[in-house]
């Protein structure tokens, strides 16, 4: 597979995941700020913007926050921007995609760019985004051959999920909204039911530990790290050129999480979130170094 195609598959995975995680985060954030008004609007917005590493000079109310993070097509941090970027990457690998995947993604892009900001409420917008993305994900899972393309897409999705879950944890729902925050954090990760099945009470610390270390929940950092590692190993078995640096990075990330279990110490969980976030970045760099970066393009200068 061409490196260029591989990189596009990887970014399709990342952007689709970013669109989904961001719309969940925004919809729940909006709900939370409507129902629990114990925190001033500007503070509520700042904690989200900070977690997403976005500047917060203009946005103040939850409505403005949601509108701006849903809407700007030129910004890949927004939901529509992510979908547009995924679709742009899909265009460049269109010949390598199944018809179903391209049509689903193209359809999502068309529908969302045409009408998302006009939806009556952030919750309604989120439904539309999720509905479309589920179709794309279904097409990916059941029509794409399990070759390099699928591994790169899965790897991108897993690394983005680690990143988004760590950002969700950086919002610190448990500190900002002590009463309603922990449940809101779970909802933002679509994990309320999964958490409650564990039989634990949703306290701030238990929720954080769950989102970092639960081995069965698909959005936990541990589970995502396992998925990332499986994709890296899959690429290797297909003859990937990884010189060992990528395997080492992703293995380190997964094992740090996997063998940290059972400590129940909030400080250790905080440290894990931080370390894993950085690990995600160095893993992404290792992916690029191993698979995407070819010898520099030769540019003629006069």
């Amino acid at each position, binding site marked *: 597979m061409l490196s260029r195609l591989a990189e596009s598959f990887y970014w399709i995975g990342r952007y689709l995941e970013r669109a989904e995680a961001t719309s969940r985060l925004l919809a729940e954030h909006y709900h939370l700020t409507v129902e629990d008004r114990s*925190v001033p609007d500007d503070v509520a917005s700042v904690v989200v913007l900070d977690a997403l590493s976005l500047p917060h000079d203009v946005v103040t109310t939850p409505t403005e926050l949601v509108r701006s993070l849903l809407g700007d097509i030129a910004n890949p941090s927004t939901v529509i921007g992510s979908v547009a970027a995924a679709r742009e990457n899909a265009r460049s690998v269109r010949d390598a995609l199944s018809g179903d995947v391209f049509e689903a993604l193209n359809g999502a892009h068309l529908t969302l760019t045409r009408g998302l900001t006009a939806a009556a409420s952030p919750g309604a917008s989120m439904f539309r985004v999720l509905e479309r993305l589920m179709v794309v994900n279904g097409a990916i899972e059941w029509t794409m051959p399990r070759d390099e393309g699928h591994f790169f897409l899965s790897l991108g999705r897993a690394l983005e999920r680690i990143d988004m879950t760590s950002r969700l944890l950086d919002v610190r729902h448990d500190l900002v909204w002590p009463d309603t925050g922990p449940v809101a954090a779970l909802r933002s990760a679509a994990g309320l039911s999964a958490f409650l099945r564990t039989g634990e009470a949703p306290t701030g610390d238990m929720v954080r530990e769950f989102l970092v270390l639960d081995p069965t929940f698909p959005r936990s950092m541990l589970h995502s790290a396992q998925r990332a590692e499986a994709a890296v190993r899959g690429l290797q078995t297909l003859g990937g050129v990884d010189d060992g640096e990528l395997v080492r990075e992703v293995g380190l990330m997964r094992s740090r999480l996997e063998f940290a279990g059972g400590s129940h110490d909030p400080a250790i969980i905080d440290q894990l979130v931080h370390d894993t976030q950085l690990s995600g970045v160095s893993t*992404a760099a290792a992916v690029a170094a191993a698979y995407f970066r070819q010898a520099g393009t030769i540019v003629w200068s006069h």
Partner: protein
Amino acid sequence: MRTEATPGSLGAYDEMVDDSGAPRAGMGTVADVLTRLGAEGLSERARLRDAYLDRQGITFSLSGRERPLPLDLVPRVVGAEEWDRVEKGIVQRIKALEMFLADVYGPGEILDEGVVPRRLVTTSNHYHRAAYGLVPPNGVRIAVAGIDLIRDEAGVFRVLEDNLRCPSGVSYVLENRRTLAHVLPEVFAGAQVRPVAEYPERLLDALRAAAPSDVSDPTIAVLTPGVHNSAHFEHAFLARRMGAELVEGRDLFCRDDRLWMRTVRGARPIHVVYRRIDDDFLDPVHFVPNSLLGVPGLLNAARAGNVAIANAVGNGVADDKAIYPYVPAMIRYYLGEEALLPNVDTYDLSDDDQRHHVIANLARMVVKPVDGSGGYGLVIGSSATEEQLAEVARTIEGDPRQWIAQPIVTLSTCPTVVKEGAVEPRHVDLRPFAVNDGDEIFVLPGGLTRVALPKGSLVVNSSQGGGSKDTWVLDEGDRVVDDEGRPTPPRVTRVRRSAVARQSAPVSADERLRQQEGQQQQTLQPYAALPQGLPADGGDAPC
């Protein structure tokens, strides 16, 4: 906005505005939003609400058909002080009713002293001798109660009836709040509303506290009659939100005086069963022998102390409507206090004088079966025909113990969205929910407001075409509030900026190529260029 009184609501207490026409506490923003949206805006939101409820599957079954519980767009607001009184009154009432149940299934002192007539207890359809002497592990018989309240013409909250068996509706309280926040977020802007989301956690705590004392980590199950029951949505909701097992009778069996469920890992013990099926169907060994919904041997397991049943078997004697008039006397007898929440005047039809008075004045009475629920069998004298009244009189004379009568009380009204976005007053009641964990009785702030949707109707039951409203209790206590009504200072103690910047696909040589292609065409699609990332301070730097 002023809600005009309709002929059917003559003299009703208006919950929106006071006598001078000014909005009551917390209703100002609500009134503004309603005015601003207008009929068209409200119709649009109503469509959004219906789509949301359908999608979420928030339904109840009526005559075999699944449908969303009609949620009105206008919230019902209860002030902080008002609520304080209601809460105290409910706690007091449940304390007394708990003592009454312990008494009548034990020593029976209140009957010996004649405070409550023995004949009413022994003739109650829900006084179960099978429960005599059966003491729950932590003594709690009323784990969950729903106390139905109404506001009379003077605005006084009165208890209309007690529900101590399987009160339902609390799932709609939680879902109504989420739904309203979803479809009409504007109305929340002006008020600090006390949250309701903690209910499942409170219930779980109470059920855990009810477990046999030798079990350290009890298994809790919600026992449902199955998917065809009208309240199945609620059973599934509570099980899911508590992380408890949702079981049917066929999943369970009793062996060695213990309760077990069949799982793929073999039989597993259950220590607390929150049952949502009636006593009659609970255990065919003691009750209806051909019941397929219950579990043979459950009562014996409970008597052996190996499983707790919540709510307890036989609670129906305490919410029997013929016992209801004696609740204030119970409160005096057990607690030495006067009832904080008054009853509605009620006639005991087994008393000859009272019965004659009622029959002579049937047109001004509401007649109800003593153990009915859901508004079935209820007759409102003022809207019944002569023949119906004659029929009612005959029925009462035939078996007076099965009926009570109350003078008609005009329920308070709340503005309600009716056809095509118009807003009119409709009658409402209120069912607050209380959870007793043995140490503390927790009353969920608010409760289920039911609204009679037909004009002038006084029947609010969902099985009779009633709707519901999101019910707010204003939070006005112990918070420091600034000029704009926001608490200050914020409770934010620590906020961390994420350590890494967001990554985005690098703008590569390929991208430069594409830009050149675009320039050649003299047009640039808005998204033809891969979007630029944000300034990076750690991640992949876009070139």
